[in-house]
């Protein structure tokens, strides 16, 4: 499966020799997000164009290009955002790195995990994806991986639960 890192993230070049093995998100996440973008913005552009054309004149209908431009911009942004998401399982902790402009890197030791949640909505299921969310005793811990192959999500969940039990620690 093609992943974001394989597509050339370049984010891990500054890491030391013991650099973690990053895994990106599956291509399906990008496809899904782009699809959602198109599904919302193209009908909006059409509706806007028709309404403005009918009631305000054909010149005004040009404003319908705005949502289209937004869609085109979003198309590229989503790709950058998708490439930025990556995670790595190390011996004792999980690393999640994300964001292009607002970068965030989270490290959660396995022993602190209280709950691992695998979720998948109807749209995600259609694209064959499932999200994994980790909860620790701190609500601020925002450790989630938005879209994974369901098999990979389950493997990750089982592995995290197993490691969490082995290294378990309370508050």
């Amino acid at each position, binding site marked *: 499966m093609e992943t974001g890192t394989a597509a050339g993230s370049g984010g891990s070049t*500054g890491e030391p020799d013991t650099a973690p093995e990053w895994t990106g998100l599956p291509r399906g996440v990008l496809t899904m997000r782009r699809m959602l973008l198109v599904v919302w913005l193209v009908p909006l552009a059409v509706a806007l164009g028709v309404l403005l054309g009918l009631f305000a004149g054909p010149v005004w209908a040009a404003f319908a290009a705005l949502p289209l431009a937004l869609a085109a911009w979003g198309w590229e942004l989503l790709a950058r955002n998708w490439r930025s998401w990556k995670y790595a399982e190390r011996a*004792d*902790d999980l690393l999640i790195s994300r964001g292009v*402009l*607002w*970068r*965030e*890197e*989270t*490290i*959660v*030791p396995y*022993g*602190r995990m209280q709950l691992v949640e695998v979720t998948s909505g109807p749209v995600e299921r259609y694209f064959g994806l499932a999200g994994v969310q980790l909860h*620790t*005793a*701190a*609500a*601020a*811990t*925002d*450790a989630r991986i938005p879209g994974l192959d369901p098999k990979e999500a389950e493997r990750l969940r089982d592995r995290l639960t197993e490691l969490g039990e082995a290294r378990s*620690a*309370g*508050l």
Partner: protein
Amino acid sequence: MGERRLHPVTPLRRAWAPIAILVGWAFHDPDGTQRRLSELTAVTLALGATAVVIGGALYGFLSWWFTHFAVTDTELRIRTGLLFRRTAHIRLDRLQAVDVTQPLAARIVGVAKLKLDVVGTEKKDELAYLDEKDAAALRAELLARAAGFAPETAREVGEAPVRNLLHVQPRMLAVSLLLTGAPWVLLVAALVVPTVLWLITHNAWTVVATALPMLGGAFASSVGRFVAEYDWRVGESPDGLRIDHGLLDKAHETVPPGRVQTVRVVEPLLWRRLGWVRVELDVAGSANGVLVPVAPRAHAEAVIERILPGVRVPAAGELSLPPARAAWCVPVWWHGYGLAVTDAVFAARHGLLRRRLSLVPHAKVQSVRLVQGPWERFKGVADVKVDTGANKTVTARLRGAEEAVGLLQAQAERSRTGRREARPDRWMA
């Protein structure tokens, strides 16, 4: 051991509710009340009053009758409810703190409330009310069981001896509150804002509506705090930290060893010359947030060193400041940021006038995050956030980007290994 009921005066604590509703209604509409009262005959009045009293008494009695609690080897079980049954099982090994509180009325009657703080317990999970002596005995028993004493001996262990660490003198507390900005600001605002409003609107109601909350706020943050923090004692016992305080309402808190998630040393501007500090603490699932309301720095630090073994509060000189380019991100206030990482704690300071130094023991870190916005990236700085179990996040702001990446990795490593030296949940086991 069987189930027990609460103290028989408990129904009375809800007795004031119907009376309060009537009084509130009378205040809300005085003319209407008088008219209604004159319309009523003595008989209907007597009947109405009887109905309210009987209804209230019945409700109070039933809720008391159907509330039971029991202490088993592993949990405290509270069973409540007549129609909607509810049983709370509170696991003793997850115990974070025990609070025994006595509002003024309860002190007169000789009863007390007992609350076990476990993550997720709510106000309704407290045992209100118990006989004073029973509450003390129950607290000792619960702590002994949570500490890991054998179940047979847990009842006989009794109250652990307390060694006094600190006692705040009323004079010092009063001076410290006079040197606090908030009440003065509220007081001045309560005088100025209504005057201005009066000159603009000439409406007495707007004046009252704005002045009252401000005066209330000023009162609560000065006299209210004095009454609550009067006679503040911090003690140390084998069961952990003991905090007792209060002038009218008495509160006794017990925090077992190893439950403190973060400690904050707060230094308001006007206290700095006197060298006084306030110490706040966070315990998961507990609402109590103050460890020492005011004390000379050396005494406060000694207390912190007792409750977080092996921790030394870093001096101001030991903190490393952010790089000078951080001024482009947060002008002036960047001087207030500082960070020190010792063997035992992650200590981050923020605030320029009111300095706050937050300490997190490495063993209490739940996750570590590095956050960097676009402007911060342009300037080559980043924030490192440390999340703890009491839902407090301590942030080391505007560290150099290289340093932040190293800090992130090192902190994750330290939090992982820091856990090994931590004491067990059952501290006597």
